[in-house]
């Protein structure tokens, strides 16, 4: 049994709820025997009358429990001094004392991952049912038109504002709760395939508009998805740099193989991806460098050693994020004590790394993860080729899924250390942290970043300035700010390698060096 939420008015669990001999079933007295037979491990007690509702309160009170009147959003109370209000607060505190993160499990059902799944699947079922009805009953009705105008918009709308839950939010909830997101996506894709719409892209769900606009959007998404052939496994990639590099590589290959130069769709996708690449690469490389330099390590030597480890797995020092105040021994301790990582390392023959060098440990695990991923991808490719199946429909094995978990855990450890320090910095400037995040979120969304991405960027104030400019300026001007045009030109005209793209990024970064130094100075002064 897994928790969905712990709210007093709607405590819910995923799937069925198992009962045991501490639980009680109340049923009509004439059904006691059969109820006991069907539930031998549970206590059964009968009641006289037509329905159970008159007995539930008495039954709880009989067992010494305090009971309250329930409203739609919690216990009914008149004021903050009301006993039921205080009691509800106590409930939350008692859960915290029990070690339960009430924030994590406090979603109402309508904002939960479970509701998200429910709505998506229901809409697909409805579409399917309607499709069958139309096919059997009214052959003269243009089925495709009905699907587009009545059904697909429903599928889209349910993924976003209608059930109040953002896709990324749902994904985050799912991963936090250890839900097999990959399996779920596969299920949805299979369902969609049964309707002949397997190429719909999941990310583009927050769209409200007229039917014509929705139709247009669907067609656009199908087109982009066909072009990109995005592997669903990339949804898990914790390092956006790698994801984007892979995407660029794939787009480039696709463009070459299908001679798509000058194709508007291709250019659109490429611009989008390169923009993200630039933002993600922003300043990550210097964080670890600062730390090492403070420790008196010769950075050139160290960088060379690191790159020897990183380059074979498609990374280099710039891809790392961390903080100069990081306490390696704390993180190392956490990693050593983590059961999932322990098991993963044991299964994959990764040796314990002596000392306090978190990066070595991290690199060791990342290297193995990458190795498994590459191997698995090859196997999937081969299987797809042999069987003729769509690669998205092939189920990856457990070792692959473990990679994903370990990746996520490692990312969290790093983020843990970074966040409180940045918050401290913001508060020192006299700003309210919560208000600050509220203001920041729409700006980040506008450039396709999440708060989490943002927290991994060191020079944040510099980025904020650029974001403001990004939003204010025209698209063309904005692209000039980031030097994207230059990158795209270089990339398209010369078939530049990824390393060269990164070099171009370095040029842009260096051009902002003076500005960045000023920012750093200001931060240090604060």
């Amino acid at each position, binding site marked *: *049994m897994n928790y969905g939420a712990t709210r007093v*008015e709607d*405590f*819910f669990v*995923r*799937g069925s*709820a*198992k*009962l*045991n001999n*501490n*639980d*009680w*079933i*109340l049923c*009509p007295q004439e059904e006691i025997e059969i109820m006991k037979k*069907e539930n031998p491990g549970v*206590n059964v*007690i*009968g*009641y006289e009358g037509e*329905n*159970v*509702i008159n007995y*539930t*309160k*008495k039954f*709880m009170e*009989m*067992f*010494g*429990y305090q*009971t*309250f009147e*329930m*409203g739609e959003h919690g216990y009914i109370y008149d004021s903050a001094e009301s006993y039921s209000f205080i009691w509800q607060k106590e*409930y939350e505190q*008692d859960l915290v004392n029990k070690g339960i993160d009430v924030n994590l499990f406090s979603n109402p059902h309508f904002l939960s991952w*479970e509701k998200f*799944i*429910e709505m998506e699947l*229901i809409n697909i*079922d*409805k579409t399917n049912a*309607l499709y069958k*009805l139309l096919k059997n009953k009214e052959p003269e009705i243009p089925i495709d038109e009905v699907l587009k105008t009545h059904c697909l918009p429903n599928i889209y709308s349910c993924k976003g504002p209608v059930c109040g839950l*953002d896709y990324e*939010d749902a994904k*985050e909830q799912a991963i*936090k*709760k*250890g839900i097999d997101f990959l399996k779920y996506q596969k299920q949805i894709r299979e369902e969609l395939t049964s309707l002949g719409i397997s190429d719909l892209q999941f990310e583009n769900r927050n769209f409200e508009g007229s039917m014509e606009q929705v139709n247009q959007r669907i067609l656009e998404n199908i087109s982009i998805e066909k072009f990109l052939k995005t592997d669903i496994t990339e949804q898990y990639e914790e390092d956006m740099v790698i994801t984007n590099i892979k995407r660029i590589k794939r787009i480039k290959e696709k463009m070459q193989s299908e001679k798509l130069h000058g194709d508007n769709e291709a250019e659109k996708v490429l611009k989008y991806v390169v923009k993200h690449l630039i933002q993600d690469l922003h300043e990550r490389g210097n964080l670890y460098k600062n730390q090492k330099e403070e420790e008196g390590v010769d950075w050139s030597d160290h960088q060379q050693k690191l790159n020897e480890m990183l380059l074979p797995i498609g990374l280099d020092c710039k891809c790392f994020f961390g903080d100069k105040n990081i306490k390696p021994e704390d993180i190392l301790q956490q990693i050593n004590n983590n059961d999932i990582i322990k098991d993963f390392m044991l299964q994959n023959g990764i040796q314990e790394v002596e000392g306090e060098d978190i990066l070595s440990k991290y690199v060791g695990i990342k290297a193995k993860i990458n190795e498994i991923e590459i191997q698995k991808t090859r196997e999937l490719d081969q299987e797809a080729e042999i069987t003729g199946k769509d690669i998205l429909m092939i189920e990856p094995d457990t070792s692959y899924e473990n990679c994903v978990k370990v990746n996520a855990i490692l990312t*969290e450890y790093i983020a*843990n250390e970074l*966040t*409180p320090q940045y918050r401290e910095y913001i508060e020192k400037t006299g700003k309210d*942290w919560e208000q600050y995040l509220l203001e920041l979120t729409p700006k980040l969304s506008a450039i396709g970043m*999440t*708060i989490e991405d943002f*927290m991994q960027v060191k020079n944040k104030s510099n980025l904020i300035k650029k974001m403001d400019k990004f939003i204010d300026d025209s698209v063309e001007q904005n692209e000039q700010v980031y030097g994207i045009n230059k990158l795209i030109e270089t990339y398209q005209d010369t078939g530049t390698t990824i390393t060269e793209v990164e070099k171009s990024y370095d040029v842009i970064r260096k051009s902002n060096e003076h500005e960045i130094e000023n920012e750093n100075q200001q931060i240090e002064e604060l």
Partner: protein
Amino acid sequence: MTDPTQQMKEKIEELNKKAGKKLTINELIKSGELSNLTYEIACNRKGIDKYVLMHVTDYKPKGDKIRTVTEKEIKVKEETPFGEIEYRNRRNTTHFTVNSTVTSHFFGNWDNKRYAVMSPLNNCLDENKNELRCNKSRRLFCKRLSQIK
């Protein structure tokens, strides 16, 4: 101290034995035999032991579990401009209220349900403690910023 739920269970079994049948809740309340124990237990309920989950339903629990509507394969019927369609109910969750009974609202009516299941919260939490591990800093990254403390 003995588990209060166990104490009550033993007392009810003792009364059943004495009566030579399974007493209903109406009879147990009427007998007044449980009042002292109830009072004693109520005084000793502290911390997480104060909470109980209540679930009311029209569907019988089976095989020692409360099944979801998805598992029971309950279908939903809906009128469309093209005729009636029928599809699966995909609500694969089990819902409870804490120390209270659900009240009817816009999305449902629970006034005439036949069965109720009562489950001590602590019992439920202990079974699932491994599912509840989480990382506090992740909260900061939730989009529901109002939850940030």
